[in-house]
């Protein structure tokens, strides 16, 4: 039981509320500061069309454009990316029984990076007028890399975790080498490749949400349905068999689901580190290892964390934007170490 049912609902309610506040704050802050109450008013009324929430009509129209066309899609996308990375992290850490496992370990990052690099370096304009070319190539790359790692790691009918991690390492190194080779040999617009590799959320719009959201919206509920199985997997593969879990089938499903969520995030935002590794870890330290609570709580926390990281990325060196991956690492690492000092309840 660990935490009482009421406590669980309370935790999720508080986190949901915090996410709503984070979205409002995220929309409010920028080169043009929009008061929080105005943001709330405009967002609240947005579904029924804009009503006079602001006295000055021309000002209000301007605010509405900024919010609906620029800031809101960016903040929502940020939330989706944060939630997807954190959820993928929970799935992989549970699956590998390793609190240090990361969505990128199984090759998602290098595969996505290669796909994106091909798109950027060769200036491909294939999908939907070019806007979606890079994300789609990144997504294809991520899933292909995961599949390759999975195939290599397979021994007989099963996937031993150690061989999975080693295969991931080797494939990562190989794909990163190809990526670097392409970058150097083509030598154009490396700036955007580098920015992409460090993770960024600038100039993202509703289209990107349309790419990322379906994968997360499908992946997350499936992962949640398997949360009890994930708990039992932590007792070891053999014990899980004894408790009636089809272990190898479960591993395949979770691997695909995790890769799908991580790839969705990577394909629209580049490589944002630390969210997938740190969020589940931090949340687990606070609420325990039960995936039924850990999964939704991590998704919410990942979303909130990334929204605030993105705010910092926008304002710290304004008007220059810092890649948000830099911020997540800068803040993620010390926070993580702090938690590790305060509450040691993870490793035996």
């Amino acid at each position: 039981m660990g935490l009482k049912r009421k406590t669980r609902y309370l935790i999720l309610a508080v986190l949901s509320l915090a996410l709503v506040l984070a979205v409002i704050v995220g929309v409010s802050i920028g080169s043009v500061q929009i008061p929080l109450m105005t943001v709330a008013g405009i967002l609240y009324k947005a579904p029924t069309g804009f009503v006079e929430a602001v006295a000055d009509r021309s000002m209000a129209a301007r605010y509405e454009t900024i919010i609906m066309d620029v800031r809101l899609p960016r903040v929502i996308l940020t939330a989706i990316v944060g939630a997807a990375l954190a959820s993928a992290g929970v799935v992989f850490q549970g699956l590998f029984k390793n609190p240090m496992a990361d969505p990128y370990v199984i090759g998602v990052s290098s595969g996505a990076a290669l796909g994106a690099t091909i798109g950027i370096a060769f200036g491909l304009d294939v999908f939907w007028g070019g806007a979606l070319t890079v994300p789609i190539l990144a997504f294809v790359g991520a899933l292909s890399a995961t599949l390759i790692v999975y195939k290599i790691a397979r021994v007989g009918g099963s996937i031993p975790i150690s061989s999975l991690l080693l295969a991931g390492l080797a494939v990562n190194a190989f794909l990163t080498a190809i990526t670097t080779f392409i970058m150097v040999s083509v030598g154009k617009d490396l700036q955007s490749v580098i920015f992409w590799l460090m993770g960024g959320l600038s100039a993202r719009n509703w289209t990107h949400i349309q790419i990322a959201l379906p994968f997360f919206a499908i992946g997350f509920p499936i992962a949640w349905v398997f949360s009890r199985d994930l708990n039992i997997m932590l007792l070891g593969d053999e014990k899980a068999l004894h408790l009636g879990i089809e272990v190898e089938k479960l591993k395949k499903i979770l691997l695909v689901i995790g890769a799908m969520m991580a790839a969705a995030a990577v394909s629209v935002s580049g490589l944002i580190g630390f969210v997938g590794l740190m969020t589940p870890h931090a949340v687990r330290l606070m609420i325990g290892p039960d995936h039924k609570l850990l999964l939704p709580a991590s998704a919410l926390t990942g979303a909130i964390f990334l929204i605030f990281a993105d705010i910092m990325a926008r304002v710290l060196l304004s008007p220059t934007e810092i890649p948000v991956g830099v911020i997540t690492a800068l803040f993620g690492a010390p926070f993580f170490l702090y938690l590790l000092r305060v509450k040691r309840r993870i490793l035996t």
Partner: protein
Amino acid sequence: MTFKVELSDLSLSYEGVRVLEKISFSVGEGDFIGVIGPNGSGKTTLLRAIARVLRPESGAVFVNGLNINQLSRREIAQNIAVVSQETNMVFSFTAFEVVLMGRTPHASRFKIEDQDDFVIAEEVMTITDTWHLADRPISELSGGEKQRVMIAQALAQKTRFLLLDEPTSHLDINHQLQILSLIRNRSREGLAVVAVFHDLNLASRFADTLILLQDGRIHINGLPEEVLTVKNIGEVFGVDAHIEKHPATGEIYIYPLLNAEPVIRGHNT
């Protein structure tokens, strides 16, 4: 319906080495079978094969006449509970949460544990003397406490067949007797039990019949006093023994003797 598990000519190789050779026996309601034998004689492998963790090369396990290969994992788990030697937990669930996981084979994927599950968990934790540990993280428990929690988890599965791999290896003498008595009582009530024993005296004292394994074969299968003879112990373990029978209870007690050189039989452990 009566419950019966039959092994028929079960053979199994591991990396090219034959580890089980034509094992046949059956376990029915209320049977308590002890499996004994030297290190590497195939005791643990036998349990894993019965629970279909390992697939036999030939032969089969039948649960109530059905080949176990035709059952789903979940159906197997509804019938057979297993307590393994070691369980390593990376993340720290509480002892109660771990015991509750024993209810998984009976729960729907979309349903969370209900009051019945909590009642069962409390009951099995009380009888295994682990209820006071309920809220403690399992990773902080001692080896013996952890072992009792895992036994409680297996009992929470409410199966008709229980497989135990050296269930009392980490327990103090008091808990050893307590847990084995508990399992024997459950067996008297109809639970079928196959338990691997390291300690021959505990095996003879608690099991109804014993199976003595040597190099993956059944050396002898019978009542404790038939199996634990000076001759059999000498042949299989390479140890001279003195065996006494308690005048009142009839229980036998084995004293390994030190006067002879133990025979080195070249076993790998």
